[in-house]
C-alpha cells in the first residue's frame, strides 16, 4: 500500500493499530462515525448557544454567572452584551448550517451507508475521504478558536453580509480576527465538502455492485448522490467568495467594499466594491445549501418509511425525479433571499416564479409519502415515528414558503420571525428529524447494538411537540412584524408579545433538555444495548445483508450481486413479507394484493 494512488485506493488492507483504525482511518464507516461525532458536538454547542440567546432575549439584563467566566468582555458581570448576543447568533447559525445540517444527514450517514448500499467495499478515494473529514475538523477547530480570542466571534450573522464583514475591526467587536477566522474556517470547509462530494459521485457512478443499476439504488443513496451534485456546485462558488472576502479584509482589495464608507468615524480606505456581489455569491451557495440539508433527510425518511410501512412507495421513480428537479431548481432561486436588497425589481419577479415552482416537486414528494401510507401496515418504532414526524414538519415548514416566495409579501415579512420560523422548521427541525430517524434505524448496524426504544419514543414526543411549540409562535410573531436578530425587544409594539417569547424560551429549554435523553441513549446503548441481529427491521437493502457491525471490508471480500429493486416489501419472500436485494429468489406478490 505504500504507493498511495487513487486507483487501488478503494481496496486497502485491514486497518492495524489504534491510529489507523479510529483516527486517520481510511474506512468509510469509521469516517462516517467521525462525521457523526463532530456533528453531535456541533449540534449540542449550537443548542446551548440558542439557550443562552433565548434566555438573554427575554431577560436582557439578567445575570448568567458562568457566562462571565467564559467571556469577560462578552458578559461583564454576567450580563450578556449586545455584541456577544450577535456573536452567539453567528456561531449558532454557522455551526448548525455547516457542521450539523451539512455533516450529519449527508456526510455522516452518506459516508457510512452509500458504499454499503451500492455493494462497494469503500469509497472510490479513501484517502480523499479521510482528508475531507480531517479538513472539516480543521475548519471546525478554526471556527471554535473565535470563542477564545479576546473580542470573541464575529457579529455579522452566518450570512456575513459585506461590507460589515469585510471592513475589519471598525465594524465592531468580533469583526477583527473573529470574522477572519470565520472566513478561513468556511473556506476550509468548502474544500472539505468538495472533496467529499467528488468522492460520493465517483463512488456512486463507478463502484456499484453487479446488478445494482442506478434505478435499483435505495432512495437515500439517490438523495446522497443528488445532494453531492448540488454540493459540488454550491461549495465551488462559496469558496471563491470566501477567498475574495479574506482578501478584502487583509489585502486591502475592494471586491465587496464601496467608496466613501465612514465607519466608527474612520473613512474606509476602499473604493468601488459591490456589497450585492457578496450577497449574490453567498446565496448562490446559500439556497442550494438548504437542499443539501433537507434532501438527504428526504431520502433517509423515504428509506425508513417504506421499511416500516411494509409496502413499497407509490412510486420510487417519482421520488427520485422530484429530488432531482428540486436539486436543479435550487439553483434558480437564490435571489429570493434578496427581494428587498435593492436588486433590480424585475429580477425579483424572475426569482419568484422558480421559487414557487419548487413547491411542485416538494408537494409531489409529500403526496407520495402520504398516499403510500394509505393501506400500509405501519410499524411504530422510534425510527418510523421520526420519519412520520418529518412529513409533518416538512409540510409545516414548507407552506410558509408560499409567503416568502412572493416579493410583495416579502416586503412585509422579510427579516421577521416568520422567516426564522420557516427555515428552522423546514431546514433545521425537518432534516434533524431525518437524522434522528436514521440514527434509530441504523444504530444497530453501526454499533451492533439496539437503541432503547422507550427512551427513543420519549425523545420523539418531547422533540415533536417541543419543536412545534418553539417554531409555530415565530410565524405569528412574524405576522405582527417582530424583527429577527434583536438581542432584546426595545420596539414599543413588541411589549405585549414578550410573553410569547417567554413561552418559546421555556419550550426551547425543555425540548433541548429532551435532546440529552437522545445523547444518553446513544452512549448507553452503544455499550449496554442488547446485541443487534443482522437485519433487525426485516429490511431489504444491502446494508442489512451483512453482519452488524459490518466487517472492515463490508462484504468480507465477497461481491454482492443485486437481483431486485430496493423495496420488495409486502411480498411472499423466503424470510417473510420481504425479499432482499441480493437474494436470487423470485418475487411472489403477496396474496390479497
Amino acid at each position, binding site marked *: 500500500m505504500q504507493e498511495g494512488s487513487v486507483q487501488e485506493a478503494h481496496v486497502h488492507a485491514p486497518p492495524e493499530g489504534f491510529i489507523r483504525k479510529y483516527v486517520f482511518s481510511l474506512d468509510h464507516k469509521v469516517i462516517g462515525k467521525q462525521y457523526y461525532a463532530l456533528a453531535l458536538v456541533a449540534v449540542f454547542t449550537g443548542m446551548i448557544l440558542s439557550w443562552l440567546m433565548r434566555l438573554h432575549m427575554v431577560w436582557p439584563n439578567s445575570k448568567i454567572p458562568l457566562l462571565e467566566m467564559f467571556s469577560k468582555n462578552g458578559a461583564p458581570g454576567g450580563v450578556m452584551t*449586545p*455584541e456577544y448576543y*450577535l456573536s452567539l447568533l453567528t456561531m449558532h447559525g454557522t455551526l448548525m448550517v455547516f457542521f450539523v445540517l451539512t455533516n450529519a444527514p449527508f456526510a455522516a450517514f452518506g459516508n457510512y451507508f452509500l458504499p454499503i448500499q451500492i455493494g462497494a467495499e469503500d469509497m472510490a478515494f479513501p484517502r480523499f475521504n479521510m482528508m475531507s473529514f480531517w479538513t472539516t475538523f480543521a475548519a471546525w477547530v478554526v471556527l471554535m478558536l473565535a470563542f477564545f480570542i479576546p473580542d470573541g466571534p464575529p*457579529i455579522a450573522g452566518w450570512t456575513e453580509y459585506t*461590507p*460589515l464583514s469585510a*471592513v475589519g475591526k471598525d*465594524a*465592531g467587536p468580533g469583526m477583527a480576527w473573529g470574522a477572519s477566522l470565520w472566513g478561513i474556517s468556511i473556506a476550509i470547509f468548502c474544500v472539505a465538502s468538495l472533496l467529499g462530494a467528488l468522492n460520493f459521485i465517483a463512488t456512486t457512478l463507478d463502484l456499484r455492485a453487479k446488478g445494482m443499476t442506478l434505478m435499483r439504488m435505495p432512495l437515500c443513496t439517490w438523495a446522497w448522490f443528488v445532494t453531492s451534485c448540488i454540493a459540488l456546485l454550491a461549495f465551488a462558488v462559496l469558496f471563491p467568495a470566501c477567498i475574495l472576502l479574506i482578501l478584502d479584509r487583509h489585502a486591502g482589495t475592494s471586491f465587496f467594499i*464601496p467608496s*466613501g*464608507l465612514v465607519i466608527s*468615524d474612520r473613512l474606509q480606505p476602499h473604493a468601488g466594491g459591490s456589497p*450585492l456581489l457578496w450577497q449574490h455569491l453567498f446565496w448562490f451557495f446559500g439556497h442550494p445549501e438548504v437542499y443539501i440539508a433537507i434532501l438527504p433527510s428526504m431520502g433517509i425518511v423515504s428509506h425508513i418509511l417504506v421499511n416500516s410501512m411494509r*409496502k413499497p412507495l*407509490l*412510486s420510487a421513480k417519482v421520488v427520485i425525479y422530484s429530488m432531482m428537479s428540486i436539486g436543479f431548481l435550487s439553483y434558480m432561486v437564490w435571489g429570493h433571499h434578496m427581494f*428587498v436588497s*435593492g436588486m433590480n*425589481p424585475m429580477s*425579483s*419577479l424572475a426569482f*419568484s*416564479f422558480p421559487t*414557487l415552482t419548487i413547491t*411542485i416537486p416538494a*408537494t*409531489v414528494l409529500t*403526496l407520495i409519502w*402520504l*398516499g403510500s*401510507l*394509505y393501506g400500509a*401496515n405501519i*410499524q*411504530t418504532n422510534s425510527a418510523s*415515528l421520526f420519519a*412520520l414526524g418529518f412529513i*409533518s414538519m416538512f*409540510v409545516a415548514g414548507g*407552506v410558509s414558503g408560499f*409567503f416568502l*416566495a*412572493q416579493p*410583495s*409579501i416579502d*416586503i*412585509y415579512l*422579510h*427579516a421577521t420571525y416568520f422567516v426564522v420560523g420557516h427555515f428552522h422548521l423546514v431546514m433545521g427541525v425537518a432534516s434533524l428529524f431525518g437524522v434522528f430517524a436514521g440514527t434509530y434505524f441504523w444504530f444497530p448496524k453501526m454499533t451492533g447494538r439496539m437503541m432503547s426504544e422507550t427512551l427513543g419514543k420519549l425523545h420523539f*414526543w418531547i422533540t415533536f411537540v417541543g419543536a412545534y411549540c418553539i417554531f*409555530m409562535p415565530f410565524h405569528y410573531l412574524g*405576522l*405582527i*412584524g417582530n*424583527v*429577527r436578530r434583536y438581542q432584546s425587544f426595545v420596539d414599543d409594539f413588541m411589549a405585549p408579545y414578550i410573553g410569547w417569547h417567554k413561552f418559546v424560551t421555556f419550550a426551547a429549554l425543555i425540548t433541548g433538555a429532551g435532546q440529552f435523553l437522545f445523547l444518553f441513549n446513544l452512549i448507553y446503548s452503544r455499550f449496554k444495548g442488547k446485541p443487534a441481529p443482522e437485519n433487525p427491521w426485516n429490511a431489504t437493502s444491502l446494508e442489512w445483508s451483512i453482519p452488524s457491525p459490518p466487517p472492515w471490508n463490508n462484504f468480507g471480500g465477497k461481491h454482492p450481486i443485486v437481483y431486485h429493486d430496493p423495496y420488495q416489501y*409486502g411480498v411472499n419472500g423466503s424470510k417473510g413479507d420481504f425479499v432482499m436485494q441480493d437474494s436470487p429468489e423470485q418475487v411472489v406478490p403477496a396474496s*390479497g*394484493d
Partner: protein
Amino acid sequence: MGKALAVVLVLIAVLSAYPIVMHMFVLPEDISTHGHAIDEQIHDTMLEAGLSFVAAQIVLAIFVWGFTNRKAGSPLKNFPGGAKVAVIAAFVLVGTEVLALGVMGQKAWAQVYFTPPRPDAIQIQAQAEQFAFYFRYAGPDGKFGTIHPDKIDEGNQNYFGLDPANEVEARDDIVSGELVVPVNREVQLLMHAKDVGHSFYVRELRIQQDFVPGLDLSVHFTATKIGKYEIVCTQLCGLGHYNMKAYLSVMSQEDYEKWLKEQAAQ
C-alpha cells in the same frame, strides 16, 4: 402509539390554526396607499397555505390512525390511482396556486417598484448609519448640499458631512432624527448608507427596503393616517442593530410646515 400520534397531529393542526383564525396576531393597521394589496396577498396566501397545512396534517393523522400496527394478515392496499393521482394532484393544486399567487400577487410589488414617484413627491434623504437614521430636507432652496464623507462629524451633529462653509446649498438643509411627512402627500425617500448595510422598515407603511452602501436606492410611499410610527432597521448592521430605530411622524400639512420652520430656526 400510532393512534396517539394521530391525535397529536390533529391537535397540532387545530392549535396552530387557532391563533390565526381567532385573529390573535393581526398585522398593524395599514397607513399606506399600496399596503392593502400586500395585506390581501397575505390573507389569500394564508388561506391557501393554512388549508394545505391543516389538510396535510389531518390526512397524515387519518392514515396513521388507520394503518398503524394492523393485525397480522390484514391486506395491504394501494392508494387508488397510485402515483399518477399524487403527481397530477400536485401539479394541478400547486400549479394553480403558483399561478394564482405568482401572477395575481404582484400588484403590490408593481405599485411599489414599477410606478415612478409623482413629480411633486416630497424628496427626503434618509441616511442609515450605525446605529441611527437621520433624515435630510432640502430646505427653502430645494437643493441638497453634497455629502462629503471626510467632513462627517457626529460630535458636531454633522451626520451628512455637509460643508456649509463653502456650499450655500448645504446651509439651509434641515437634518432631523425623526422622519416627518405630511399626510396624503407622496414622499420619495432617497436612501443613503453611511457605513454598512441597513434596512428601512415601517410595519404600518408596509415598506421594507435595504440601504446598500455605494448604491443609493429610493422608495416612495404615501402615508394616509396622522400619527407616530416606529422605523426600525431589519438588516443586521452591528452591535447596536436591535436599538437602531427612529420615528415616523405623519402630520397635517400645516403642522408639517410649522415643524419645518421650527427646524430651520435652529
